[in-house]
């Protein structure tokens, strides 16, 4: 990481702004991106009006980065939190990766933003000390001012010009010790809530650029279907329809407004070539089950116990469906507005579609109504670029909910063969995990190694091995919150619970027995904390029970206990959920709690029946009616305990942390409630 400093003129303000630029490489970057990232990708501007503007190459998808990143800077810069404004950067090739994924935003910027803030603070102190003719050591900074016991105080705004003349490498930069933190680790409400509750926050869907036409696309009714012929006479006759254009993804209707476009789309008569009418997820399920690798050799010396598990296909279904606005101009420039987790993808698609160089393409990153992994590949932006190239006007492409569900990049299904050798007391002394699934077709370069690395987080002291088999999916596959951890971890945890119940052992105690080493202490403590919070009881077969699930991932630890009932009339109901998380350094406890609750709601929804199925060549589900996400009447009380580890523990990720462990906890509770070991997810009403 490197930090440089400069001055920028600000209209009507003497002295201008003080600008710090920071070059940050992060774990999500490829080697070439890391090298490119010596160009600054984070900008901090101290403006003459006392506002500090922070520009970051990350997307706000609801995870609260605009709040947490402002906290990091405000703390070390020693300015009031309310004076920091976070701006989401437009895509810029010099920034390196602008991807928001992998629970990495805070992890990748935790040190750089604090160090940048501390550098600016040191420079401002040096400037004040010089003006006062005192030693910098006798000054300190607080609330956007430099203070001296005798000389009084100078606001940062009065020091910007002087500060800009100081070489930051000549001042001593010291990060604040944790006991001096005033902002980090304390509950901080979100900066954007006022705009949300007044309807003022403009998402990509809400853009109002004059002259914009709206397009919706009639998409293939079955997988890989292509347009054979179109009769668009009725659609074109609708007043307000400007054009009907066949594009690779279907037939687009372009109109002056959304209602007109939707009405006209329904009037299209399209004949499709449908090569994949036989695609059926039941066939894939059988292939996956057959492909899940068996152990080649099982050690002798104990009882061999085995089980198999199935994990479903899923759609991300963000609340705001995919959409993007593009303007392909005659002067060769292309401007795109999109709420993307990965704006580089929109640029790359625009380059491929128009043949124009990436330097002529601007991507504005909009706030977006949820991502969950579903906004990494910007097919809507590609469509908007294609259509704007035809109309010459700005075009917004809107996907309907049905489009978003039936044409999603599905989280692949998987099958898991688990084998354990148990000693005389029922403790597993060897394990085998055979996984069959399929890579993410959107990232063909991510192969078996990626799947194993992403899925493998077995934290317990049981030697053994994991083997992977690939088995082609009948549809395109993509990211979903927690990615392969959401399959591997529930399978392993369900199996461990089944191992415990096999000999009447307590599933929670068995986990503690397998976490005796010092490097397992953080997870062990989460289990102990959650057991106490939930008043853990191991009762089997009464219709209501508790289950536990754990994970060590993203640099964090989590243990979850679910209290669940299963009945013929009420189905699967999660009554209470207890979560203990150790995320290393806590930036914003309110944010941690929100992310944990959100991912837990995902898990409960999936456990209770949200899943995709393919019949006769198409995804069957199309909306929240048949792909049911949890609603208020099934929402359990979720109690989140934050476990604080020692001083030297680095900051961990939280966005994806709670999903796998909650799925496991609910499954363990279903096992306890019913006395029957689950064989996969969803736990009730599973369809292949």
């Amino acid at each position, binding site marked *: 990481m490197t930090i440089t400093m400069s001055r920028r003129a600000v209209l009507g303000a003497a002295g201008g702004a003080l600008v710090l630029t920071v070059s940050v490489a992060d774990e999500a970057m490829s080697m070439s991106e890391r090298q490119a990232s010596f160009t600054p990708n984070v900008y901090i501007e101290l403006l003459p009006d006392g506002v500090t503007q922070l520009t970051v190459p990350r997307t706000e998808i609801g*995870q609260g980065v605009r709040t947490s990143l402002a906290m990091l800077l405000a703390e070390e810069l020693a300015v009031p939190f309310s004076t920091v404004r976070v701006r989401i950067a437009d895509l810029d090739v010099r920034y390196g990766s602008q991807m928001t994924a992998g629970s990495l935003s805070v992890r990748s910027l935790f040190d750089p933003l604090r160090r940048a803030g501390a550098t600016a603070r040191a420079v401002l102190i040096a400037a004040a000390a010089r003006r006062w003719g005192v030693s910098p050591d006798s000054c300190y900074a607080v609330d956007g001012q430099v203070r001296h016991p005798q000389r009084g105080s100078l606001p940062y705004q009065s020091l910007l010009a002087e500060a800009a003349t100081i070489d930051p490498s000549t001042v001593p930069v010291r990060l604040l010790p944790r006991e001096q933190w005033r902002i980090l680790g304390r509950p901080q409400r979100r900066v954007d809530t006022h705009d*949300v*509750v007044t309807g*003022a926050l403009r998402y990509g869907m809400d853009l109002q650029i004059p002259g914009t036409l709206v397009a919706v696309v009639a998409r293939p009714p079955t997988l890989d279907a292509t347009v054979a012929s179109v009769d668009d006479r009725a659609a074109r006759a609708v007043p307000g329809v400007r054009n009907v254009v066949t594009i690779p993804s279907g037939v687009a209707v372009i109109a002056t407004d*959304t209602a007109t476009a939707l009405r006209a789309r329904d009037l299209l008569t399209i004949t499709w070539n449908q090569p994949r009418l036989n695609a059926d997820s039941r066939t894939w399920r059988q292939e996956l089950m057959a492909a899940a690798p068996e152990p080649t050799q099982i050690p002798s010396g104990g009882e061999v116990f085995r089980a198999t598990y199935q994990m479903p296909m899923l759609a991300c279904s963000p609340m*705001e469906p995919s959409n993007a606005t593009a303007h392909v101009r005659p002067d060769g420039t292309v401007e795109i507005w999109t709420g993307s987790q990965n704006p580089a993808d929109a640029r790359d698609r625009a380059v491929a579609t128009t043949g124009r160089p990436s330097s002529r393409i601007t991507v504005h990153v909009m706030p977006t109504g949820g991502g969950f992994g579903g906004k990494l590949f910007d097919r809507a932006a590609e469509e908007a670029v294609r259509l704007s190239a035809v109309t010459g006007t700005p075009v917004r492409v809107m996907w309907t909910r049905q489009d978003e569900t039936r044409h999603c990049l599905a989280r692949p299904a998987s099958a898991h063969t688990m084998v354990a050798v148990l000693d005389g007391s029922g403790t597993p002394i060897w394990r085998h995990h055979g996984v069959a699934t399929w890579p993410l077709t959107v990232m063909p370069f991510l192969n078996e190694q990626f799947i194993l690395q992403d899925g493998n987080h077995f934290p317990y002291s049981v030697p053994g091995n994991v083997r992977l088999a690939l088995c082609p999916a009948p549809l395109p596959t993509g990211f979903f919150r927690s990615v392969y951890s959401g399959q591997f971890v529930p399978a392993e945890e369900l199996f461990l619970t089944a191992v415990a119940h096999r000999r009447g052992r307590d599933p929670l105690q068995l986990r503690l027995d397998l976490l005796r080493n010092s490097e397992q202490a953080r997870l062990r403590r989460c289990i102990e904390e959650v057991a106490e919070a939930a008043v853990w009881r191991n009762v089997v077969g009464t219709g209501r029970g508790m289950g536990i699930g754990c994970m060590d991932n993203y640099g964090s630890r989590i243990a979850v206990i679910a209290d669940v009932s299963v009945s013929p009339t009420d189905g699967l109901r999660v009554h209470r959920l207890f979560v203990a998380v150790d995320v290393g350094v806590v930036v914003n406890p309110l944010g941690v709690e929100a992310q944990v609750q959100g991912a837990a709601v995902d898990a409960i929804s999936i456990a209770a029946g949200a899943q995709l199925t393919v019949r006769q060549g198409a995804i069957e589900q199309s909306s929240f009616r048949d792909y049911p996400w949890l609603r208020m*009447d099934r929402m359990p009380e*979720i109690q989140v305990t934050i476990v604080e580890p020692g001083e030297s523990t680095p900051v961990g990720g939280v966005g994806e942390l709670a999903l796998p462990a909650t799925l496991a906890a609910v499954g363990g509770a279903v096992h306890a409630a019913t006395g029957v070991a689950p064989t996969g997810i969803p736990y009730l009403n599973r369809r292949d």
Partner: protein
Amino acid sequence: MQIRVNRRLVEVSAPDDTPLLWVLRDHLGLTGPKYGCGIGACGACTSLRAGQPIRTCVVSLAEVGDAEITTIEGLSDNGDHPVQQAWKELDVPQCGYCQAGQIMTTVALLARNPHPTDEDIDEALSGQVCRCGTYQRIRAAVHRAAELAEEER
């Protein structure tokens, strides 16, 4: 055609069967009500018609009649309606996309039932999907809004 939206009489030129959602968003520039599903299944577009919550994506322009329509933009001048205050105090939104619908549904709930129980809240709000899973804070915020409204009376 003229309709009443947020205490103003506005002229709209659109076919009778146009869903109110698109009249509000595309014709009147009121983008607070959101498109989530278009079939009345998620509640993101919920606004009030004569104080009652309606799914504007499945209510046509013709069905509006003389009734006053209130969108999130018309709820208060400064974002200080008790429900909005409670949402801010309890830090409810994550992505925020569904929250206009959650808030408008809550406004109608509190108007007919100033002190709802958890069961009342479940019944009133179970039509509103929050894909981020903010339900626990929504529930707390509904109770808090009831308190704030009581204090204002």
